[in-house]
C-alpha cells in the first residue's frame, strides 16, 4: 500500500469489488436467497484550532463491510470492520440470524438487478494529497491574522476522501468516490464573534485566508451590539442561515413520511404552500453538489422538481414506497431495512438576481443575519422552528447597516417564511452547521418572528 505523508490512501475500485464478490461467494454457501454488500472506506483528517493555536489534530482510516441478506421474505443487516473471511462469514451469519427472527414481510421486494448510472467526477487529487503540514500552515496564517488584529481565532481545516461500493447477488454493482475540504473559522473580538465557512469537493475552491478576513472584519463590526426589542422584523438571511433553516425540510419530501402522516406536506401537495418565487430541485448532478449518483439499494438518483413556483409538486420514492404508491423509484432510498424510507439529500434552490448590497439598500428597517444556531422543531406540521441568531446580527436602517445587535431567539414557521420572501440572491453552495451543504441563495424575508433576546 502506498503512503501519503504516513497516511493510507484509498483502495482501488477493483479491490472494493473483490471484497463485494468475496462476500457474495461466501453467501452462496448459506441459506441466503439474496445478498447485498456495501463496502465503505474513509480516509479523513481534521486540524482544529482555538486560542490562535492548533489544539486538536486528527486522522482516521476505516473500512466497513455491511451485509444484507434475504431469506423467505425477511431481511436484516450486519456490519463489520474486519475483512478476514471468518469475520465476513460471521456478518453473513449474523444477518441471516437477525432476518430469521422476524415475521415474514409480504411487501419486501426482490433486490434490484444491474442499473446504469450517470457518471460524476468528484475526486480532486490535490484534495486527497493535502498533508497535515499544508493544513497547519493555512491555520497558522489565519491565526497570525487574528493575533495581528487583537482577535482570537478558532476553527477547523478538514480534508478527506471516501468511497463506497455496493453490489448484490442479482448482478447490481455501483461505486463512487469523492474528496472534500472544509475550512471554518470563528473570529472573536469580545464580546463579539463572527464566522465564515466553505466546503467543497476540491480544496482549490476553499480560500482559508479570505474566510479568515471576512470573519475578522465582521467580528470587529459586531462589537458594541445594542439590544432591540423582540418582534417581527424584515430580515436578510445570508446563505448559511437559509441553509440551516430550510435544511429541516429534507425529510418532509419523503413519500414514506407522507404515508406515515408525519410530513408537513400532508394534504398540501399541489397547493400554493410557498411564494411563487420559490422553486426547489433535488439534483445530485448539479455541479455544486457532492454525493453518489445512486441510493442505498443501488437505484440511480433522479433529478426531482420538488417545488415549482411555490407549489410542492413531487416527492422522492424508495423502491418500496414507489411500489406501494404506484410511482417510479427516484433513487433516494436509505439502506434497508429502515423505517424512514427515503429523503432528498441534494437540494438546489432556484435563486434570484438581488445582491446582498441591493437587499440592504432596499430595506427601510430590518436585520442582517449571519447564521442561525441550535435549530429545533417546535411544531412539525406548521414547521415552526426555534433557534438563535449567532456570530453577527446587524441593524439595517434606511438602506444601510447602522449597528450591531444582540442575538435573538426566533420561533418561525418555515412554510410562512417561504411565503414571505421578497428578494433572492444568486444560489451558491452554502455550508452551515445544522444541515447538509446545499445550493441556496441569500433571501430577504418580511415578518420574521423573534420572540426573545439573549444577553450578548
Amino acid at each position, binding site marked *: 500500500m502506498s503512503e501519503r505523508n504516513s497516511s493510507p490512501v484509498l483502495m482501488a475500485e477493483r479491490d472494493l469489488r473483490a471484497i463485494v464478490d468475496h462476500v457474495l461467494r461466501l453467501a452462496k454457501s448459506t441459506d441466503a436467497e439474496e445478498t447485498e454488500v456495501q463496502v465503505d472506506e474513509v480516509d479523513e483528517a481534521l486540524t482544529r484550532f482555538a486560542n490562535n493555536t492548533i489544539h486538536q489534530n*486528527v486522522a482516521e482510516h476505516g473500512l466497513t463491510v455491511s451485509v444484507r441478506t434475504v431469506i423467505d421474505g425477511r431481511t436484516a443487516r450486519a456490519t463489520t470492520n474486519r475483512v478476514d473471511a471468518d469475520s465476513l462469514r460471521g456478518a453473513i451469519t449474523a444477518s441471516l440470524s437477525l432476518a430469521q427472527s422476524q415475521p415474514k414481510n409480504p411487501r419486501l421486494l426482490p433486490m434490484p438487478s444491474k442499473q446504469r448510472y450517470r457518471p460524476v467526477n468528484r475526486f480532486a487529487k490535490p484534495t486527497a494529497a493535502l498533508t497535515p503540514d499544508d493544513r497547519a500552515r493555512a491555520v497558522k496564517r489565519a491565526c497570525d491574522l487574528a493575533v495581528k488584529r487583537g482577535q482570537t481565532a478558532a476553527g477547523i481545516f478538514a480534508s478527506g476522501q471516501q468511497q463506497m461500493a455496493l453490489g448484490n447477488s442479482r448482478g447490481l454493482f455501483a461505486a463512487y468516490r469523492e474528496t472534500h475540504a472544509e475550512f471554518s473559522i470563528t473570529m472573536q473580538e469580545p464580546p463579539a464573534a463572527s464566522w465564515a465557512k466553505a466546503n467543497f469537493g476540491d480544496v482549490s475552491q476553499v480560500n482559508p485566508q479570505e474566510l479568515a478576513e471576512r470573519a475578522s472584519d465582521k467580528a470587529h463590526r459586531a462589537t458594541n451590539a445594542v439590544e432591540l426589542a423582540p418582534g417581527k422584523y424584515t430580515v436578510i438571511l445570508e446563505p448559511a442561515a437559509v441553509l440551516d433553516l430550510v435544511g429541516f425540510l429534507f425529510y418532509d419530501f419523503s413519500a414514506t413520511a407522507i404515508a406515515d402522516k408525519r410530513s408537513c406536506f400532508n394534504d398540501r401537495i399541489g397547493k400554493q404552500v410557498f411564494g411563487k418565487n420559490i422553486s426547489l430541485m433535488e439534483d445530485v448532478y448539479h455541479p455544486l453538489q457532492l454525493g453518489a449518483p445512486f441510493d442505498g439499494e443501488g437505484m440511480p438518483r433522479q433529478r426531482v422538481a420538488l417545488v415549482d413556483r411555490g407549489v410542492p409538486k413531487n416527492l422522492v420514492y424508495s423502491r418500496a414506497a414507489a411500489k406501494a404508491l404506484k410511482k417510479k423509484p427516484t433513487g433516494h432510498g436509505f439502506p434497508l431495512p429502515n423505517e424512514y424510507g427515503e429523503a432528498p439529500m441534494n437540494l438546489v434552490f432556484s435563486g434570484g438576481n438581488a445582491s446582498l448590497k441591493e437587499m440592504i439598500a432596499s430595506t427601510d428597517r430590518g436585520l442582517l443575519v449571519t447564521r442561525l444556531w441550535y435549530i429545533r422543531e417546535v411544531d412539525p406540521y406548521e414547521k415552526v422552528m426555534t433557534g438563535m441568531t449567532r456570530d453577527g446580527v446587524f441593524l439595517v436602517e434606511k438602506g444601510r447597516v447602522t449597528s450591531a445587535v444582540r442575538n435573538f431567539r426566533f420561533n418561525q414557521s418555515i412554510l410562512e417564511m417561504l411565503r414571505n420572501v421578497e428578494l433572492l440572491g444568486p444560489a451558491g453552495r452554502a455550508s452551515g452547521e445544522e444541515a447538509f451543504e446545499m445550493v441556496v441563495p441569500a433571501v430577504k424575508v418580511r415578518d420574521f418572528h423573534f420572540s426573545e*433576546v439573549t444577553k450578548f
Partner: protein
Amino acid sequence: MWDISSEALETAKLRGATYADVRVMHMRQRDLTTKNGEVGTLSQSESIGLGIRVLARGGWGFASTDRLTREGVSACAAQAVSIAKASALAKRGEVVMADEKPYIDSWQSAFSKDPFEIPLETQLALLLAADAEMRRVKGVTLTETDLQFRKIDSWFASSIGSRIHQRKVISGCGIAATSYRNDEIQKRSYPNSFGGQHALQGYELVESLDLMQHAPRVAQDAVALHTAAQCPQKTGTLILGGSQLGLQIHESVGHPIELDRVLGQEANFAGTSFLTLDQLNKLRYGSDIVNVVADARVEHGPGLGTFAYDDEGVPAQCTDIIKDGQFRGYLSNRETAHRIGLKRSSGTMRTENWNRLPIIRMTNISLKPGTWDFDNLVADTDDAILMETNRSWSIDDRRYQFQFSTEIAWEIKGGKKARMLKNPSYSGITTEFWNSCDAICNRDAWTLWGTPNCGKGQPMQTMGTGHGASPARFRNIGIGAAFSKQ
C-alpha cells in the same frame, strides 16, 4: 490487545512523542425498531480499532486505524507523531498536564441479563406487542418502538504505565404514538422521547420499564392532545417532570461547565460558556436548595456517564458543580485542569469510539433529590403548569437563553392536576431559572435519565450522558413563547 497497544506506544516514543495514550476499542451494537406493526430497522454491527494520541514537539496529534497488525499500528503511531509535529508549526505555548498516577485495572459494568443473549424473537415480540397495543387506540396514525443494545470493550494504555480494561453493557428502549388530525401532529412517548430511556444496564432495564402497560396511555394521550386547550402564554409557576428536568440540567448546567468550552476550545462549533473562570465559587447559580454533582462513580447509579476510568486514564470521581446554589466546579481533563490551577483532572475525558479523540464530556450531571413528595408538591401549588417529556430544546452558544417545549402539560389549579394542555413551552435565562427553584421532589421520584445522543466536537462525536432528576417547581417562568404570534 496489550501487545498492539505497547507496539503503538513504543513506536510513538521512538518517533519523538513525549507522551502517548492508546485506546483499542471493540464495539458491538444491535438496533431493532418497529413502525405501524412491522419491523423497521433490524441490524447489528461490530467495530474494532485503535486510536493513539501523542504529544510531540509540544503539539498534539491523533491517528486511528482498523489495521490491527504490528505494521498497521506502528504506521498509525508514526502518523500521529507526524501530525503532532505539524501541530507544533502553529504552537503558541507548552502543553502541561495535571499529575496522574498510572493504574492497572479491569472493570465491568454490572448487568443481570446480557441483552445479546436474549433471543431476538423475544425482543421483537415485545416491540410488536407494544406497537399493537398503541394501534388499538382510534386516531393513532403512527406507532414506533425501539430497542438498542451496546457492548463496549476498551483497552487503555499510556506512556505513564497505565493498563486499564473496561467493559460496558448499555441498553435502551422506548415507544411512541403519533396522531395527525385537523392539520396538527401530536406525539407522546414513553419512558422518554427520542428513543426512550437508556442506561448502563442489561435487558433488565427493558423488563423494568413495562412497555405493555404504558402503551395504551401513550396512544390515548397523543389523540387527546388534539382537543386539549393550547398552553397559554404567561409568566407563572412551572413544575417540570423528571425527564424534562434531566434535559434542562444537560443543556443549562452540563454544557456550560465543560472547561474546554470555557477556555474557548469549542468556540467555532459548540460555542463557549457564560461560566468564565472569575465566576467559580462566586456565582449564585441557583437557589439554596439546588445541588448538582458530576458523578461518574458506580455508586451514583447505572447512568450513561458511569465508568471506572475516563478515556485519559483518570479514575471516576464525584465533583460538586452547584452546592447550596453556589457554582463550585467544572468538568476538566488533565490539560485544562492544570491550565486553571487545579491539582487533578475531574476525570471527564471520553471518546465515542476508537477512531475519535477523547474530549471533555459530561458524565452523570445530576440534581440531588430534595425533600418533597410529588403529591404534596402538587397539593402545595395553587396555580401552575406541569410539563412532561421533551419535544424540542434549544439554547444559545454561551448557554444563557434557552427554550424547551414538551409533549404534554396539565394545569395545576388549587393543588390539583386539572385539564390537559397542548403545545407547551417555557423559556428563560439559565441562572434566573435555577434561582427560581423553590421545591425539588425526593429520592422516591428521582430517576437517573440517560441522554444517548449528545453531540460535540469536530469531527462530531455522539456520547451518552446521565442526568439524575426528580420533578421540581420553578416560580415566575416565561411560558408559552414558542407558539406566540406576537
